[in-house]
């Protein structure tokens, strides 16, 4: 986490005006968007970049030698450099473009896993994982005859690391865990876990879908081997994300998808591979969305990740305080001071879908369900929760509206 103090006060009300979607109404009321953990809204500059790309330089990268293809290639590769700086990678060669976090983790599970996980090996996950960090490992474990262990959570939604060294015993090849829970808002001590995993001879893969947008991440500080995140959860378009991997791993890994651009030489019976990271980028990539993601990264950098972390944390803390004042509301996860910008809660006797429908009629968009974390909800003993999550365009007044909406839901279901 880049814990630099914000140097100036950020005008978040002005930031909200950069997002055209807030100019419309939902059920006749101003749209209050509290589902940024699912996907964020897009500022005007991202939409304009997309539009400008298709109007002026649309072409295929790394192939054409004409002017617009050179320009598109340059802009596409420049985003790789921006991402490398964002996560403090040693080089842009350590950044592979993917469709998002899910594809990044699948890339690791398949390309690295198929070569390095064998019968009797162990994959260590946690009880708070999103399905995207469970299912790819279950598939490879099944294929390779490996087993899965999980780090449990405690009563406050933190990882219980008291048994970690025991869990790391034996043939644990990789630990894959979320940096920031998409349900509980818990921020996990990844650097400490990495240290202990490496000591036990295991690699570490981090699901950073929430932490890169919300906290800012330093891969050298975490010392993780792989780190996966998505562009659309940080103001970029859907369909673009990245995998950071230590270069030595990328060099040693076989390709994930085969096709054009990822090769060096192809004969009818065999092929050799392009340099990293292009070895992992088969076919025509998502050029326009990548370049527009670059515009999102510039926009976020101008705000500053320290200011973003402080802002979303403050909104989450305000939400937790507001909900604590409503009888019958249970808030999940650790205390506010340890919480990222995500708050999941449940109301006694009112299903999450019903809470979300009442809020929807107030113009408030929240997520209701198991948030792609069914095992975690089973552990929490609740079928579904309602989740409010925050980003740069949210304001304290959004939290006040949420509180009022939750009180209204209670009234409707009391009669």
């Amino acid at each position, binding site marked *: 986490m880049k814990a630099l103090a914000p140097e100036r006060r950020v005008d978040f009300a002005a930031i909200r005006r950069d997002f055209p979607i807030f100019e419309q109404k939902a059920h006749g009321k101003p749209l209050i968007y509290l589902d940024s953990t699912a996907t964020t809204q897009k500022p005007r500059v991202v939409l304009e970049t997309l539009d400008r790309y298709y109007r002026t330089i649309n072409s295929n990268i790394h192939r054409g030698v004409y002017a617009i293809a050179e320009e598109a290639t340059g802009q596409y590769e420049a985003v790789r450099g921006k991402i490398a700086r964002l996560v403090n990678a040693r080089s842009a060669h350590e950044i592979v473009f993917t469709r998002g976090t899910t594809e990044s983790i699948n890339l690791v599970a398949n390309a690295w896993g198929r070569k390095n996980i064998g019968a009797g090996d162990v994959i260590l996950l946690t009880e708070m994982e999103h399905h995207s960090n469970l299912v790819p490992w279950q598939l490879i474990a099944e294929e390779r005859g490996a087993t899965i262990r999980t780090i449990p959570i405690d009563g406050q939604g933190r990882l219980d690391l008291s048994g970690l060294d025991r869990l790391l015993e034996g043939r644990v090849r990789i630990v894959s865990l979320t940096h920031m829970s998409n349900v509980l808002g818990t921020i996990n001590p990844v650097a400490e876990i990495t240290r202990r995993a490496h000591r036990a001879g295991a690699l570490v893969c981090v699901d950073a879908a929430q932490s890169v947008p919300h906290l800012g991440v330093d891969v050298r500080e975490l010392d993780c081997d792989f780190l996966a995140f998505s562009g659309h959860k940080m103001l970029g378009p859907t369909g673009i994300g990245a995998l950071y991997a230590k270069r030595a791993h990328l060099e040693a890994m076989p390709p994930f998808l085969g096709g054009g651009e990822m090769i060096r030489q192809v004969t009818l019976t065999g092929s050799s591979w392009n340099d990293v990271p292009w070895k992992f980028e088969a076919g025509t990539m998502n050029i326009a969305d990548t370049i527009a993601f670059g515009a999102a990264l510039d926009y976020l950098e101008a705000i500053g990740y320290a200011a973003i972390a402080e802002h979303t944390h403050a909104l989450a803390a305000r939400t937790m305080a507001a909900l604590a004042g409503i009888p019958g509301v249970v808030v999940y996860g650790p205390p506010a001071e340890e919480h990222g910008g995500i708050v999941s809660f449940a109301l006694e006797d009112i*299903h*999450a*879908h*019903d809470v979300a*429908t*009442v809020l929807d*009629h107030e113009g408030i968009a929240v997520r*209701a*369900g*198991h948030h792609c974390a*069914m095992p975690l*909800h089973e552990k929490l003993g609740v*079928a*579904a929760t309602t989740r409010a999550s925050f980003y740069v365009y949210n304001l304290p007044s959004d939290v006040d509206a949420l509180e009022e909406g939750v009180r209204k839901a209670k009234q*409707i*279901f009391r*009669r």
Partner: protein
Amino acid sequence: MSLDDFYRQTILDHYQNPRNWGTLEEPDITAQDSNPLCGDEIRIDLKVKEGRVEAVRFSGKGCSISRAAASMLTEAIEGKTIEEVKQITRDDVLDMLGIELGPVRLKCALLALKTLKVGIYGVQQSWPGEEEE
């Protein structure tokens, strides 16, 4: 549609006081299903005598729409022949609820009907009314 229309008194009544709630001992037909979207679960048990639904019970967890739809559906099929139950469509369920639903909440409303049909036919059917989409 206003919120009051959405949460009509009858829906809230069926949600808070579900009819035919529970399970049957030694049911002739039993079926369980869940909605992967939200984790809702339902089980429907039927006692069938001479081709008619003699008794029906449902249980599980779900939102107001899914539970109210199940409650109304069980009321509707009590005493009906299995052939009549097979004729119940998604529109019948939506008429019972009397509200408009988007594609996401539609799955809440139709979970009970889907489960019932799976129990009766004994195999997984397509979503009720899917052929119309």
